[in-house]
Every structure is written in C-alpha cells, then in structure tokens.
C-alpha cells in the first residue's frame, strides 16, 4: 500500500472515534433510527468501533513487515509552533500490535454492550465516552511527540472516570475518584519530566530524541527525567507500591470498563517506558533499572500472595478484585522485562503486554458474565460449601473460565507463557553494567511468582468450575440460582471467541508478534538508528 494511503489510514484511526463520539450525541439521522434511540446509539458504537477495527487491520496488512523498525504511515505537521509541538503520527513494530489490540478490544466491548448494556444512565453518553476513550488510547500509541503523548495520556482519564462513576458497581464513586487522582498526580509529575526532556533536548519529537539517544541530556537531567516520567508511567502500569488505585477501580467498573482498563489502559504505562524512557534517557534508565526490577519483582510476589489470600475459603474474596490483583503481578513481569534493558527482556515485556490484554480482557468478560448470572462475584457466595460447579451447570462458561485461568498462569502453548518466559530469560542475563546477582534474585522471585499464580488460579478453577452436583450446595445468596445459570449466549461467544483464538495463536506462533517487535526494540535500545 502506498505511503499516503497508510498515512490517511492512521490519521483516520485516531480521528474517527472522536467524530463518532460527537455524532453519538446528536439525534440519529432518519433511516438509522432503529427500534429505539438506545438501540440506535449502541449500534452506532458498534459500527464506529468496527470501522476503526477494520481500518487498523488494513493498516496492519499494509504495514511493511520487512522493516518493522522503520516508522511507517508517518504524518508530521506543525501544530503549535510556539511550543514546538507537532502533530507527528506513525507506527512501528512496537506500537502496531497495541494499536490493533486496542481497536479489537474496544470493538468487542461495544459489541458486548450492544446486547448487554451495563446498568446506568443513558447509553448515549456511554457510547460517546467509550469512543473518546478509544481515540485517546489509540492516539497514545500512534503519536510521536512528547506533548501529544501527554495529551493523549490524559484524554482517557475523563471518559474512564465517568464510565466507572456512572455505570459502575458498588463503591464506584470512590473508586473512580481514586483512579483519577492517582493517575493525575502521576501524570503531572510526568509532564514536568517530559518538559525537562523537551527543553534540554531541544525538541519534543520522540524520533529525534530517540536518535539523539540522550546525548544532549546531562546525566543529572536524565536521572530527574527518568524519575519524573517513570513515576507517571509507573502509576498507570501499575507498579507496586503505586498500584492501590487499581483493585478498586477494576472491581467497581462495569465489565467493559474493566476489560478496557486492564486490556489497554495499563499498556499505556509500559508502552511509555519502552517508547520514551529507554531510548530518550538511556543513562537514567540504566541507573534506575535495578530499582524498577526490584519493585516489579515485589509486585509479582505481592500480587500473587494477595490473590492466594482472596482465593482462600472464607476470605470473602471478590473474583473481579482477584483478577485485578493478578494484573498487578502480570504487569510486574512486563516491568521486569523492561528493566533488564535487553532486547530479549523488552520483547518479552511487549509480548506479555499483548498477552495480558487478551487474557485478562477475556477473564474480566467471563467474570462479568458470572456476576450477571449469579448477581455476585463474591467467591464464597458463589462457591458455597463445595464449589459453584460451573462445569456441570454451564459447561461452556466453565470451560472458558478454566481456559482463561490456565492461560493466565502461563501454560506453554498459550499466549501467557512466552512473555513471562522471555522477561525472566532477559533477567537471567541483564544488560551490561547491571548487577547480575540482583537480577538473578529478581528472576528467582518472578519464578516463585509463577508458581503462586498457578496455585491461586487453580484454586479459583476448583472453587468456581468444579464442585458438588449443585443440588444441595446451591449458593444461598443467589436469588436466581434456583435454575442452572444460562450457558454462554451467542453474543458472548461472538465477543469472546476472537480473544480465545488469538490467545491460542499467539501461544503457538509467537514469532508472528516477536518478528514485529524485535527489530523495533533492537533499534530503540541501540539509539533509534
């Protein structure tokens, strides 16, 4: 495909959701009114996200796979000369998979909401917010200017806040506040770091800065910049101990909110590390890498210990909360991979990013479905004395849940395996100058984390999917549980199948993804040329 066509494709991918968001607030034109205004606007959401997905697949198809290290589909026009801010868009092997993942997950969420709109105010605002959210996330992965990156990074906050606060479950207002305040606190610090880099480096252009590879920034500047930018990104990622907004937000958010939060919003943090911190301030990154790795390792252990505790009998653990904490652990692997500063580790991190998006997205969908059926996601209430016996009552749902859990614990052959394996492999032989014994310790901790993850995931499977015959052990609190819960419905199949298929595909054919990221990562670590 010609460069101009790709250029327009990428621009359209970022702008189309915004246009769609505005359009969804207007009354439907005649001919598209549908059965009711609610249905029409939800359908509008599906159409727009579907179009964006189609465009991003076209972009992926037109992408020159022989040179994924090169920025493609680039647009570079001046926007605010006073601040030297340019509208600079482009994709390479690092951002393309994330772009497609975002478009896919948002489409699936829109599709799911079309049939199962979360309880709350009008769907009009819901669709508009979802589309703004999509635009902001896609822009984060597509822009190549530090200020635009910040703008896109902030753009997702308001829609996500309202999605949680308006359509969420119990404790939603507080959770939404916590989410937005934490992220804002981090991002203001990040803004200072980005400005410092921009002023000292003489440009806000990420490609130019990556090519300089920190040569224009003094060591002190790099240290401050990495600390400031890293803090903002670490809140988003989230890195232990800055993660405490995450469990509440995930638990309170509506199903699609949790899916997008875990599936794509967290990736904005780790993407920022790879795209900005590593190439722009390599000295600073080098200094702070061991600390990042240490926090990541603690996060892995901490996340899995909390999950183990939540999965315990009588702990009143919430299933959504458990998946949220498991995200802390999984993102720990991603951060560990990045902290090794080796191509292996960073590739693993990017792979784990995508895998986590697919698997945790699927898990949140499934838990949401369980919650809809039983009216609760409390593990004790669900499983009663012996277990919820989902295998017996709703075999397909139970099977999918088991599949998600097993993929999440990193079974070889599924997507979760490669990223974590590569991240640990990177930690086995970290970049020159990093303390090898320290990283070996972190690797050992991460290995222990995988064991713990396997433990709690299997406990969850046992308690939710297996159990007695269902007759005498039926949960007391479940009002509608007199009859067996409905098994997977067709729209649920439609929303979940792509995630399952991609999880298997990425597990069996990791080269498809690694072939894209590896050349780009090599280049970023080398200094952008």
């Amino acid at each position, binding site marked *: 495909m010609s460069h101009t066509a790709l250029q327009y494709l990428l621009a359209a991918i970022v702008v189309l959701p915004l246009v769609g968001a505005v359009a969804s607030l207007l009354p439907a034109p005649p001919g598209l009114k549908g059965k009711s205004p609610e249905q029409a606007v939800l359908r509008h959401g599906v159409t727009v996200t579907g179009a964006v997905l189609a465009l991003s697949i076209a972009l992926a198809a037109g992408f020159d796979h022989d040179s994924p290290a090169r920025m493609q589909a680039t647009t570079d026009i001046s*926007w*605010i*000369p*006073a*601040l030297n*801010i340019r509208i600079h868009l482009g994709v390479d092997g690092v951002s393309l998979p994330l772009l497609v993942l975002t478009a896919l997950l948002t489409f699936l969420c829109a599709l799911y909401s079309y049939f199962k709109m979360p309880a709350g*105010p009008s769907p009009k*605002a819901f669709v508009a917010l979802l589309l703004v959210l999509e635009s*902001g996330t896609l822009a984060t992965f597509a822009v190549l200017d530090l*200020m635009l990156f910040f*703008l896109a990074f*902030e*753009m997702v*906050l*308001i829609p996500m*806040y*309202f999605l949680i*606060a*308006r359509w969420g479950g119990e404790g939603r207002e507080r959770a939404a506040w916590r989410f*937005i*305040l934490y992220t*804002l*606190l981090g991002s*203001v*610090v990040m*803004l*200072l770091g980005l*400005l*410092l880099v921009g*002023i000292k480096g003489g440009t806000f252009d990420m490609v130019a800065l990556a090519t300089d590879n920190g040569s224009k920034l003094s060591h002190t500047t790099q240290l401050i910049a990495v600390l400031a930018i890293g803090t903002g990104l670490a809140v988003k990622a989230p890195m232990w101990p800055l993660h405490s907004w995450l469990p509440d937000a995930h638990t309170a958010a509506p199903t699609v909110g949790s899916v997008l939060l875990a599936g794509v919003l967290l990736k904005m943090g780790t993407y920022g590390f790879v795209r900005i911190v590593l190439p722009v301030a390599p000295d600073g990154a080098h200094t702070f890498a061991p600390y990042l790795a240490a926090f990541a390792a603690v996060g892995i252990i901490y996340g899995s210990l909390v999950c183990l505790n939540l999965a315990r009998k009588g702990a009143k653990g919430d299933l959504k909360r458990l998946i949220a904490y498991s995200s802390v652990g999984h993102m720990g692997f991603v951060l560990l991979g990045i902290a090794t500063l080796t191509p292996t580790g960073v590739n693993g991190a990017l792979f784990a990013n995508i895998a986590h998006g697919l698997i945790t997205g699927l898990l949140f969908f499934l838990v949401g479905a369980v919650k809809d059926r039983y009216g609760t996601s409390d593990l004790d209430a669900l499983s009663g004395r012996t277990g919820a016996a989902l295998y017996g009552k709703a075999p397909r749902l139970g099977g999918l849940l088991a599949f998600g859990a097993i993929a999440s614990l990193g079974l070889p052959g599924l997507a979760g395996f490669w990223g974590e394996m590569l991240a640990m492999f990177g930690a086995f032989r970290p970049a020159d100058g990093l303390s090898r014994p320290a990283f070996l310790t972190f690797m050992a901790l991460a290995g222990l984390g995988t064991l713990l993850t396997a433990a709690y995931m299997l406990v969850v499977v046992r308690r939710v999917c297996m159990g007695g015959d269902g007759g005498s052990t039926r949960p007391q609190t479940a009002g509608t549980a007199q009859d067996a819960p409905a098994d997977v419905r067709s729209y649920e199949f439609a929303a979940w199948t792509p995630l399952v298929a991609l999880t298997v595909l990425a597990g069996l054919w990791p080269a498809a993804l690694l072939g894209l990221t590896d050349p780009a990562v090599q280049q970023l670590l080398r200094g952008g040329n």
Partner: protein
Amino acid sequence: MGSLIQSVDWLAIAPPTVTAVVALVVLVADLFLPEGRKPLLGRLSVAGLLLAGLSLLPLLDGDRSTFCLTGVSDRDACSYAADHFTLVIQLLVLGGALLTALLSMSAVRDQRLPEGEFWFLLLSSAAGAALLPASRDLATLVVALEVASLPAFALVGLRRGERRSSEAALKFFLSSVTATAVTLLGVSFVYAATGTLHLTEIAEKLGHVDPRLGTLAQAGVALTLVGFAFKTAAVPFHFWVPDTYVGAPLPVAAYLSVIGKAVGFTGLILVTVVAFPSYASVWAPALAVLAALTMTAGNVAALRQRPERAHSAVRLLAWSSVGQAGYLLVPIAAAGYADDPAHAIGSTVAYALMYAAVNLGAFAVAALVARTSPQNRITDYRGLYARRPLAALAMGFFLLCLAGLPPGIIGLFAKVTVFTAAVDAGLGWLAIVMALNVVIALYYYLQWTATLFRPAEEAETAAPARVPAPLSAAIALAAVTGIALSGAPQLVLRFASQALL
C-alpha cells in the same frame, strides 16, 4: 530643541478613548431616556465596546507611540505606547468587558440595578483598564489604575439595600486604597531618586543612583511593587477577594476576576520588566515566593469550600482565581532570571488570555444557574446536564480548561507554557510547587464537573425558564473561543514565543 507642544496620535489612543466617550454618552443619555427604554443603554454599551475593539485593527503593526517628550534625552520618552503588548492586553480587557456586558444585560434588569450608573461605571473602569497597558510613565500608570479601580468599588456596592454588597464594597475599597497609597509613596520615592517618571528612563537611571539616595530608591522600588502585588490579590493581600466576589453582583465579580486581575498584572509587568530590570535580583525571588504562596493559599482555600454552603460556587471561583493569579505570577518571576525578560512575560499574557475566556464563561454559566437557584451552591449544579445539557457541557469544558485537562486543551498548553517559563529560568522548585497546586486544583474542578452530570436529587417540577439571549450569547462566545483556542492553541500561545514589549 524640539517643539514643546506634543502632537497627539488620536488613532493610537482610540481604544481607551472610544470606551470613555461611550461611557459619557451613556451617562448623558440616561438622563433623557424614559424608564421603559433603559435597556437601550446596555445595547449602546455593547456597541461601544465592539467599536473600541475594532479600533485596535488599524494599530496591528504595533509601532505607534504618542505623548512623547522630544529632545529631552537622546531617546524619545513616551507616555503612551501602542505596541504588541498593549494591543494584546487591550484586546483582553475590551473582550472581557464585552462578555461582562453581555452577562450584565439580564442581571441589571433582574436585580434592579440602576442602569445608567451601572453601564457608565463599567465602561469607565474598562477605559481605565484599556489605558493601563499603554502607559509608559508612572503617573499615567497610577492614574489608569485608579480609573480602572474606583468605578469598580461603586459597581461592587451597587446592590442597594443589600448589607453584604455594601460591606463587600467597603472591604474592597479599603484594601485597594491602601494599595494605592503605598504605590504612590513608592512612586514618589522613585521619582525623588531618579528625577523622572518615564519607565524606560527610570530603568536607565536606577542603575547609577546617587549613593546617598540609594536607600530611597530601594524603598521606592519595594513599595511600588508591594502596591501592585496588592492589586493582583497576591498573598498576603488576598483576603478581600471571596467576600467581595460574593457580595458583588455576579457579572461584577466576573469582571473583577478577569479584568481586575489583568490590570494588576499588566501594571506589575510594566513596573518590573520595563522600569526596574536592574533590581531583578530582588524582585524575581520575591515574586517567585509570592507566586508559590499565592497559588497554594488560593487552591487550598478553594479545596476547603463546602459545596452545600450558600454561594459556594462563587466562593470557589473566587479562591480559584487567587490560585490562578499565582500561576500568572510565575512567568513574571521567571522573567527576572531570564536573559530576555520581555520574552518570558509572554507566557503570562498567553495564560491570561486563556483564563479570561474560560473564567468569564464559568461565571456566565454561574449567572445562568443563579437565576433559578439564587443561593448558587455547588450542590445546585447537580443534574444541570439533565436540565440544560448545553450549559452543563459548556461549564464542564470551562472547568476542565481551568484545570488544564483534555478536552480543555488550551488550558493544558497554557499551563505548559508557564511550566516551560519556570523550567527555562531554572526555577525547578517553583515548577514542582505549581505541579502540586495543579493537582489540588484538579481535585476541586473535577468534583464540580462531576456534580454537573450527577442526577438531580429531586425530580424537576417546572420546565426550565427561557435563557435570556445576551446570557446565552455570552456563554456561547466564551465556549466558542475556548474550543477554537483548543483546536488552534497557536492563536494565543504565539505570544509566549515572541518578545511583546
């Protein structure tokens, strides 16, 4: 020896002159108009402000000056200069006054304010404010400052029979008069030490003052600065702000929050950057500390406002305007450290333009809400989206602009220019203090924004009343300005990248 008779460039002085002339016309016309035709005065004032705004157009080159002393020194010392700085501030003042006038049209009628007096006072104050940025000598500066402030006292106290209104006016008057007295004392000291009132000449002569007059000169500089700091409502001279805003008629509070601030800042910029650059090592750190204290005091107080208290909306806007004043001080402080001070103050100008548009917009929506809920508590904004979706969206946009969060892109980038000025000048600590303040401010702005979209507590009984056309025009004008600036921030941010003075 040149001619002693000064020639007057009437075109250059048109913006303040037109405003002043229209003010007089309104005052006279008030005598002859029957009671029923009084609304005509408001329309006349709006037209006058538009005309004054149009008179900026022929001056766009920005190279005119008038009232010059010729032949006194090798350079011409002028009292009035229509350079780019002047034009931008005049645009801000006249545009702000225009929005205020639109806001006032319905308020004047609803609150039964005396029409003739109101419009005369508003226009007079605007004329003074438009004169101020052009003044290039201390006498003109002080006179312009007083022309801008004195009518404002009367405007604040215009709600006759309201105890709070007259109390507010008195508070405002006393604090402002103290500031003026201090400024005048400072100015006289400076004159005694340097023998001139022209800003550029002062800058030249302050460098080599007779050592015996050194203390006098220093005291003069310090007192002048204190006086202007007072006018900007910087800490510790900020206590009058909330009570005055609450007591004043709402459009007047809006006017004070934007044009009152702009006046103080313009004066401060002229005095520091043009007249006292040789004392930069003194005023720059002082202003930096003042900026940090002002923004912290304003934001913390705004944070502590309880939403269910009466008049909490205006009170919050008042405190937040104190906080915003702190941000506006940052580039002026940075100018003291920069090699090219004229460059740095561009950030203040750009920020002030953004702030003027969105803050007036927020006050306009507050005026709209005040029509149905005179208590104007923040809790009254619950369910505004359900009642008036467009007004709620506009209010959300204004608040997010003030907070500096997308979709308020202009607010974000205006803050970025201020941050850049601070980081550029090596004021890293000030940037960090400001970052913390931005977060505090985000908290209360966001909370208010969230309130707009929350469902109302009780079901709406009556259909919302029709919005008066001038009020909706004011909201629309502010919103369109904000949105246009968000799409093309370069429109105002270019002032941050060029030397204005």
